[in-house]
Every structure is written in structure tokens, then in C-alpha cells.
């Protein structure tokens, strides 16, 4: 068997995942913190103020990466849920459900920072604008997934039912992404592009990319830590978990 394929199969085993997550979650957290610290320093002290918005535009260095993360986390949750439903891989159920609270937190950060920025810039905390509304629905969907997961007693059935809801909800993601293009919106259009020219001064971009990478690393760390806890809880009857809990001689 090819080593990569074998590694992938091994990762599906709960004891192997426990060791993997225990090693990599702290590394992802620390790397994420360092990259985000660099990004925040650049965003607050290095980047020049915007010619129209002054210093208040700097909140976008938190707003934009967490908005991207909120959508990426939902897509990843649906992907894990689909894998879990099709191939019945227990670990993917755990990972899918571990995505939900983290994604919901990033959605909440997105809405809060957008709201704080909107008060001085738009003169209002909230507007029923397509982008804002769809992001709010995304939060409700996350809460729905979490609520459904907690409402069903059997853990495996619960994660599969909640995963199905996540797959249905994935239809919302393109609507959020294109909401500023399809409708006349108070929220600004697409400014930053992964490929090609962004409508932003190049000097403002490096801290943003650092924040994007940092939030992704933080998400990975949080995902692994949550999945590890859930994994241990579900496997709590097994010998290998009991052995982990024993004090080391």
C-alpha cells in the first residue's frame, strides 16, 4: 500500500487519531497565534490608514478572515458529513460536528466586527442587506446543526442527522458569496482576490494574508482539539482510553 494511502487509513482509527491530534493541535494553535500576531502588528502599526475611512478600516483584518473562515468551516463540515454518510467513517462524523461550534464562533465574530465597523461608516449597526442577512442565516444554520446534534441521544445518529442538515445548508454558501454581485448591496463588492488584481493597495495585503493563514491554522487547532475530546468521550469504554487515563509509571 502507498504510504500516503496507508497514513490516511490509519488516521481513521480512533487511537491513531488521538495521538495525531494530541501532537498537532498545540502546534497548529501556536503557529496560528504567531502568524496572527504578525498579521495584527502589520494591520495596526505598519499599514497606512485608508484615505477615506481612516483607521477604522483596520477592523477588516479580523472581519474578512473570519468571514472567509465561517464559510470555509461550513463547507468543510458538509464535506466531512458527506464522507461520514457515504463511507460511514466514524471519525468524519466527529470532525464534522467539531466544525460546527468553531464555525459558529467565526460567524459571530464576523457579524460583530461588521456591526462595529458599520456604526461609524454606514451610521447603523445593522442593515437588512443581502450579505448581512445571508451571513445571519449561516449563523442560524450553525446553531441548528448544533441544536440537532444535541437533541438526539444516540451520538452516531445525531451526528449523521446534523450532518445531513449541514449538507442541505451548503446551498447557502454560493448565495452568501455572490450576494454582493447579484443584488444591490450596501456591503461593498468583492475587493480582495486570490488570483489577479485586488482592489486594494498592495501594501495593505500582506497582513491580511497573514491573518487569513493564521485563522485557518487556529481553526485547524481548534478542530483537532474538539474532535480529540469528542473522540475520547465516544471511545471512553475502550481499553486504549483507559490506558491513556492511567497515571504514567
Amino acid at each position: 500500500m502507498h504510504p500516503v494511502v496507508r497514513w490516511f487509513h490509519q488516521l481513521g482509527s480512533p487511537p491513531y487519531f488521538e495521538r495525531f491530534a494530541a501532537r498537532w493541535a498545540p502546534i497548529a494553535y501556536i503557529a496560528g497565534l504567531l502568524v496572527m500576531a504578525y498579521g495584527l502588528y502589520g494591520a495596526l502599526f505598519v499599514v497606512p490608514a485608508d484615505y477615506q475611512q481612516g483607521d477604522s478600516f483596520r477592523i477588516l483584518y479580523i472581519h474578512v478572515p473570519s468571514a472567509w473562515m465561517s464559510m470555509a468551516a461550513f463547507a468543510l463540515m458538509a464535506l466531512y458529513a458527506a464522507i461520514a454518510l457515504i463511507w460511514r467513517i466514524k471519525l468524519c462524523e466527529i470532525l464534522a460536528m467539531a466544525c460546527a461550534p468553531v464555525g459558529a464562533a467565526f460567524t459571530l465574530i464576523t457579524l460583530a466586527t461588521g456591526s462595529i465597523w458599520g456604526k461609524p461608516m454606514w451610521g447603523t449597526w445593522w442593515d437588512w442587506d443581502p450579505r448581512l442577512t445571508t451571513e445571519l442565516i449561516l449563523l442560524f444554520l450553525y446553531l441548528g446543526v448544533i441544536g440537532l446534534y444535541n437533541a438526539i441521544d444516540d451520538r452516531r445518529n445525531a451526528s449523521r442527522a446534523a450532518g445531513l442538515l449541514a449538507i442541505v445548508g451548503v446551498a447557502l454558501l454560493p448565495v452568501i458569496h455572490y450576494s454582493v454581485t447579484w443584488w444591490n448591496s450596501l456591503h461593498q463588492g468583492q475587493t480582495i482576490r486570490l488570483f489577479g488584481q485586488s482592489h486594494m493597495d498592495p501594501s495593505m495585503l500582506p497582513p491580511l494574508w497573514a491573518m487569513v493563514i493564521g485563522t485557518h491554522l487556529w481553526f485547524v487547532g481548534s478542530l483537532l482539539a474538539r474532535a480529540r475530546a469528542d473522540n475520547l468521550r465516544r471511545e471512553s469504554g475502550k481499553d486504549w482510553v483507559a490506558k491513556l487515563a492511567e497515571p504514567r509509571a
Partner: protein
Amino acid sequence: MIWSAAKALMIRDLRLLWRRRGDALQPALFALLVVVLFALALGGEAQALAKVAAAVLWLAVLLAGLLALDTLFRGDADDGSLEQWLLAPVPLSWLVLVRTFMHWATTALPLLVATPFLAELLHLPHDQLPVLLASLALGTPLLSLLGAVVAALTVGMRRSGILIALLALPLYVPILVFGAGSVAAAAQGLDPVGALLLLGAGLVLALVLAPLAAAAAIRIALD
């Protein structure tokens, strides 16, 4: 085979409905009460009511449908017929589609018939009524189909209660936006066809995908 199964299911549902014909009026009665409550809360002034009439009617229909959602599979789950659906030689998604259609025909269709009367209570301008009826005719089946997925997800629970609302309402938001939006566009003299076409497109998509998703959810719930 699939047609005879559909016929049997329809006849059974209609017979059950006829045996308890008092229940069949409840969604319409609920919508009427919502309309009355809104009218009284807004002060009963014709001018003020006409402005919000379309939105209130859409909300009344949506909420009535939401309350009826739990009955979609609940009875069959309780008496075990849902398990027979799994064993039946016809696709589960087909039975789900037939049941959803019957549920729509018995809960939403009476509301559609009652809408002109309710609209009169709220002084809806008469030129908006055709648009409202068209948007409801396209929107309510869509609500029922999305609701079927949610009802199927919660069918395994003893009491779904408020959870079913928390799961269904976010999915209902786009339908409400385009449904009420089409009437609002017509009220401003704009063309409502765009929003109606979007509702129609959503309905076609949901007709194909929602029964599959609901069937998958039933399989999970009864696993």
C-alpha cells in the same frame, strides 16, 4: 408499481383526513387568527394594514405550515408504518414526495383558497392579489418540501417541539424574501416576475432534491 403505491398512500391519507375532518381546518383557522392578531396589534387602520398586508399574509401562511410540519411523518413513525415504507418495493423518496404532496394539498391548499378572504380583512390592494396568490402557489410547495427534510430529521425524537421551528425557519428565509418581495415589487409598480421565476426555479430544484434528502434523513432516524 410506483403509481399504485402512490394511489394507495393518497387514498389512505385522504381517508384519515376525512375521519378527522375537524383537524383539516386548523391551519386555516390558525392563519385567520394570526391575521386578526396582526390587524388588532397594528390598530386596525385600513391605510396602515394595506401596506403590510402581503407580508403579514405570507407570514401567516408560513407559520401555519410550520405548525403543521410535525404531523408530516409523526403519525406514521408512531404506529410503525414508516418502517413499512422502508421495506416497500418502491423508492422511499417517492413515498416521501407523495406524502409531502398530500400534506401540502391538505394543509397549504385550503390556506391558498382562504387567502383572498384573509386579504380582504387586511385591505390588500386588489391589484396585488394575483401576484400574492402566484407567489404563494409557488412558495408553499417549496416550504412543504424543505419542511419535509426538517420533519424527517426530527422524526426520531420523541418530542421535536421548538427544534423543528429552529431548523426550518432559517431555510424558509429565502422563500419568504422572494415570496413577499414579489408582492412588494408589484406594489411599487415593478415587475414581480423575476422573484416568481426564482421561486419556480427553487421549486423545481426542491422537487428533485428534497425527497432524496428527506428519505436519507428518515433512514438515519429509523436506523
